[in-house]
């Protein structure tokens, strides 16, 4: 049984070279800036890395040199590139400042390059040159100082008191006033050219001498690590952020000393093929190893501290399938090649047995026999024996015949010592009289399919899967649980019971189910709960720790599997070289993984395994396809503008397992999103503070990155627009109305003026007629009466009668001319008066009924004339032809119309047969037509005639107010 040393112990890593975007495979230094980006200095420029993309900065971008020896960031955020040509330059706010942009920087130059940088507590920046200069740079003032120490190796460091000291060729100097005073000198010949303060923040500045490593403390050199480094050239040392000590070796590789409570663990020589310049631990606990020739090596801390033990198969890697800790043989491992190995903690030993096929299960019985299930055979390693044997089985019922063991998928040993072999159904093996007897269980059951993952729980019940169902055998009989019907269709891969009696069912595709002691499903855990994969290979329970081997790695769960997430800690460990972990066991200090690449020993991670969350930044902000400034508040028009926000997430490990959440307002719940991109098109009106955050499975959420948006209603939906529009419309309406009114007023005014002129003229004519013609006619009448004093008949006094008629006509003309008479009321009054006088003169009774509004209603002079002449014609017809005794005149009004009825009680006539040319009937109809009205002449019953005129008069209203004859003012 030969031992197989562990080999291939280098950490499984991801290597980045020029093929991945590095400008060079010679990497000098590394730095993580405050935003989370990793920076690397190479001999072909500096490069920034966000986990996906390398962005290179070179001389063409403003760097003074492409050889970046050291990177540092000061308290103001400037990233200083310490170059080989010794010219200063830095990056601030995405722009590079150098001697051309800032003449102050051009004043200082170190011929052999700057190698050390420190910022003191006053904000002064200190630079140490390789062989000559120490520079104090005051970026805020003018207290720059440059000390020149020709041909002396210089290092600038902060001592424990945060005071600047320099080391000049091994001599420590402190500044007193303006002079440097030596405080101590290194005693042994030193190897390291510079002095480096450890990155853990606690370790003192170190350098390497031929006698070991010394530390600068209290202005003195103190022994840090005694070791003979003579003849080992090009040695540098530093303590990294994990507190681990690195010593680079001149002939390649490093000596890695893991920090322990008492100091450092024994050295492990790693990376033997590499020439390591530097190593840097980022805030994800990832290690970045800068090599001289082969680019960058990136690995997690766990990976770095893990060791791989590979099997002895010659045809490539030998996948390990299962692990079993045995009382008699220690840890056994079974491989997919049929190899069976014993692991002693430092090496693997292949046991002399050939399982012929995959090793699928181990079982140790109570006497220390170890049973092995493989694809083709069932093997037994008897207690105390050194060789595996194929089990010699005898058939139940014919104990003398030896039968082949056949293959098996799984083994389980019941408390009664019987070995249950799962294959197609179960075989049960019992030892009787020194022989292993086999029989098929149960005889009465006809197993035709597979029976997998058998497991005996605390109560002795055997659980197994067959035909994608969970089954149970208790006390030699199958036991049915109705509630298991619901679990039909599960592809069960492993079954384990806990001390609490709970049963864990590992599945392919459905994670882990949990059943209570009565086989009732009470919960489970899947990827939604943080499980690394839903494809479970094997479950192992160790006290309160569950190891769940999946195709994506090992899930470690500490605490109850179901219940509040806060009560358990979950983290993952990936197998080395592959994500697939087939099995795992732990002793509390280490995890031993069976992986596709072999066995992998990993220090059991502390429970506080959370790493820093990923950093997230805004990568770009596009408004309607156009990039906008991300630092200003963005205003969007509702329903019109589209905004696209892309975020850059800086993550170097598990970048493919990042989770993203966003919310639009701080009061909103977080919403999960697949990608760190938000496309917002239909936001409602309001203010938004859009937040995006990210996490990896084992970290907390990142600090959210915020984008502020204001979505405003489009201008046509704003209240002010509506008000303005309303006002404009009102203004337009007012203007239109004003113009219209003005035009109407102008027209009305013009008409009024015209009418006024006409009226004035009419008044003047009437006055002239009245005053002059009237007086003249009256005078002539006086003379006529004198001339015809005794004439009684009209025929005998033609002068008097003629003048009388002339005066009557003149009266009518004056009345018609007088504009003050242009009303219906005046017309009614005039007609009444004339009719009254005529009737009286002929001895007729006169009756009038007047029902018109008292308020004046305007009539035109033409309307008055037509109305007066029509009425007079009707009255004269009555007086001349009707032989009547009474004359009635009635006026009534209705809405927008007037009616005049003139009737008598005379002999009457038939209008239908009457000669229309007589009695002025035609004239009356014409005048009614001129009034726009209708005229109706008909016989009055029983005697007499009715003349009925209806004509429209807009604006008049119906009047019920009767003004009878007595009320009529007939004039003076």
């Amino acid at each position, binding site marked *: 049984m030969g031992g197989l040393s562990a080999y291939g112990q280098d950490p499984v890593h991801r290597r980045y070279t020029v093929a991945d975007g590095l400008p060079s495979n010679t990497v000098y230094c590394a730095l993580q800036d405050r935003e989370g980006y990793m920076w690397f200095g190479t001999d072909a420029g500096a490069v920034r890395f966000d986990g996906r993309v390398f962005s290179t900065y070179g001389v063409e971008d403003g760097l003074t040199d492409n050889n970046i020896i050291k990177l540092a960031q000061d308290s103001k955020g400037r990233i200083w590139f310490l170059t080989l040509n010794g010219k200063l330059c830095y990056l601030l706010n995405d722009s590079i400042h150098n001697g051309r942009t800032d003449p102050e920087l051009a004043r200082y130059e170190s011929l052999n390059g700057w190698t050390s940088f420190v910022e003191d507590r006053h904000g002064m920046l200190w630079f140490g040159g390789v062989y000559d200069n120490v520079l104090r740079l005051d970026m805020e003032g003018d207290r720059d100082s440059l000390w020149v120490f020709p041909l002396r190796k210089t290092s600038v460091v902060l001592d424990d008191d945060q005071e600047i000291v320099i080391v000049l060729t091994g001599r420590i100097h402190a500044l007193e006033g303006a002079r440097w005073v030596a405080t101590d000198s290194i005693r042994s010949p030193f190897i390291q050219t510079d002095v480096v303060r450890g990155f853990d923040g606690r370790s003192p500045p170190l350098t390497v001498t031929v006698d070991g490593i010394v530390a600068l403390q209290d202005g003195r050199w103190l022994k840090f690590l005694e070791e003979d480094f003579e003849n080992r050239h090009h040695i540098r040392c530093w303590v990294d952020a994990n507190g681990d000590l690195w010593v680079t070796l001149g002939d390649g590789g490093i000596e890695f000393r893991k920090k322990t409570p008492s100091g450092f663990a024994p050295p492990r020589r790693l990376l033997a093929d590499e020439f390591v310049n530097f190593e840097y631990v980022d805030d994800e606990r990832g290690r970045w190893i800068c090599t001289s020739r082969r680019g960058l090596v990136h690995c997690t801390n766990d990976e770095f501290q893990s060791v791989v033990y590979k099997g002895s198969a010659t045809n490539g890697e030998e996948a390990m399938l299962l692990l079993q800790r045995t009382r008699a043989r220690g840890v056994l491992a079974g491989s997919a090649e049929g190899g069976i190995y014993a692991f002693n903690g430092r090496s693997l030993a292949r046991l002399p047995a050939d399982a012929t096929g995959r090793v699928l299960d181990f079982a140790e019985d109570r006497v220390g026999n170890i049973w092995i299930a493989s694809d083709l055979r069932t093997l037994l390693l008897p207690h105390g024996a050194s060789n595996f044997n194929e089990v010699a089985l005898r058939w139940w019922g014919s104990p003398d015949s030896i039968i082949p063991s056949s293959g098996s998928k799984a083994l389980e040993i019941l408390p009664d010592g019987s070995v249950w072999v799962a294959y197609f159904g179960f075989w049960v093996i019992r030892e009787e009289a020194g022989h292993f007897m086999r029989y098929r269980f149960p005889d009465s059951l006809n197993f035709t399919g597979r029976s997998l993952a058998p497991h005996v729980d605390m109560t002795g019940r055997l659980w197994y899967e067959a035909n994608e169902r969970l089954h149970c055998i208790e006390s030699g009989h199958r036991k049915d649980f109705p509630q298991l019907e619901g679990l039909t269709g599960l592809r069960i891969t492993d079954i384990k019971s806990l001390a609490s009696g709970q049963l864990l069912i590992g599945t392919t595709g459905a994670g882990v189910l949990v059943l209570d002691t009565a086989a009732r499903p009470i919960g489970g855990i899947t990827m939604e709960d943080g499980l690394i994969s839903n494809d479970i290979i094997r479950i192992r329970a160790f006290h309160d720790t569950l190891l769940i081997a999946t195709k994506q790695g090992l899930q470690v769960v500490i605490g109850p599997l179901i219940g509040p997430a806060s009560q358990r800690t979950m983290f993952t460990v990936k197998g080395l070289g592959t994500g697939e972990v087939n099995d795992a066991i732990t002793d509390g200090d280490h995890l031993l993984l069976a992986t596709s690449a072999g066995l992998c020993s990993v220090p059991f991670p502390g429970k506080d395994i959370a790493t820093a969350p990923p950093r997230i930044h805004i990568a770009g902000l596009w408004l309607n396809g156009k990039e906008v400034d991300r630092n200003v508040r963005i205003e969007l028009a509702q329903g019109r503008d589209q905004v696209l926000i892309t975020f850059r997430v800086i993550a170097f490990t598990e970048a493919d397992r990042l989770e993203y959440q966003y919310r639009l307002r701080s009061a909103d719940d977080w919403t999960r999103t697949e990608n760190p991109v938000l496309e917002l098109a239909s936001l409602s009106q309001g203010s938004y503070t859009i937040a995006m955050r990210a996490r990896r499975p084992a970290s907390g959420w990142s600090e959210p990155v915020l984008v502020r948006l204001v979505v405003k209603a489009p201008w046509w939906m704003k209240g002010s627009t509506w008000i303005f529009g309303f006002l404009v419309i009102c203004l337009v309406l007012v203007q239109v109305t004003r113009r219209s009114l003005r035009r109407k007023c102008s027209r009305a005014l013009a008409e009024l003026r015209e009418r006024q002129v006409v009226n004035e003229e009419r008044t003047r004519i009437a*006055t002239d007629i009245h005053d002059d013609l009237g007086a003249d*006619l*009256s*005078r002539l*009448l*006086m003379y006529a009466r004198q001339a015809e004093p005794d004439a009684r008949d009209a025929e005998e006094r033609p002068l008097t009668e003629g*003048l009388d008629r002339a005066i009557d006509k003149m009266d009518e003309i004056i009345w018609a001319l007088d504009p003050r008479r242009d009303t219906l009321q005046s017309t009614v009054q005039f007609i009444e008066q004339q009719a009254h006088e005529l009737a009286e003169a002929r001895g007729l009774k006169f009756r009038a009924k007047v029902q018109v509004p008292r308020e004046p209603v305007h009539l035109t002079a033409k309307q008055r004339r037509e109305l007066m002449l029509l009425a007079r014609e009707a009255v004269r017809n009555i007086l001349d032809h009707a032989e009547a005794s009474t004359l009635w005149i009635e006026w009534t009004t209705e809405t927008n119309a007037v009616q005049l009825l003139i009737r008598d009680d005379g002999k009457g006539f038939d209008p239908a047969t009457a000669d229309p040319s007589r009695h002025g009937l035609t004239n009356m109809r014409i005048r009614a037509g001129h009034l726009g009205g209708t005229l109706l002449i008909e016989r009055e019953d029983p005697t007499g005639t009715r003349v009925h005129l209806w004509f429209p008069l807009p604006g008049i209203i119906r009047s019920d107010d009767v003004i009878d004859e007595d009320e009529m003012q007939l004039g*003076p």
Partner: protein
Amino acid sequence: MTPWEDSGAKVDVVLIEDHEAYRTSLEFFLNSSGRVQCRSFQDAEAALLALEARLPDIVIMDINLPGMDGIACTRRIKERWPAVQVLICTVHEDDEKIFDALRAGATGYILKRTSIDESHHRPPRGGQLHPAQIERGPQRPQ
């Protein structure tokens, strides 16, 4: 027989009329009747001066006069000499000014077309002149 015919004295009449032909004609016919002593004036101002000298029994007043019109003159006369009877003389009966004159104190109105005899025999239309007062004759101021 009219009240006028019963009186032995002539009735003193002042005629105020701007239409000269009508004024002179009416003055002529009144004076020629023998019962009336008529003085005529072309305007109100001249008539008022004459009234200061001697009050008439009756003033026959045209409404439309140049300068002070007939209504204002009537008001002045009735304020100063309430006993003087004022008759408005007009061509056209439908004249709103007639009402204004009556409100100003005119006793009544006569149409210019009315014959002199008719004027003697019937009281003025619409007037307030009581026959008894006419019969007694106007009261002269003492």
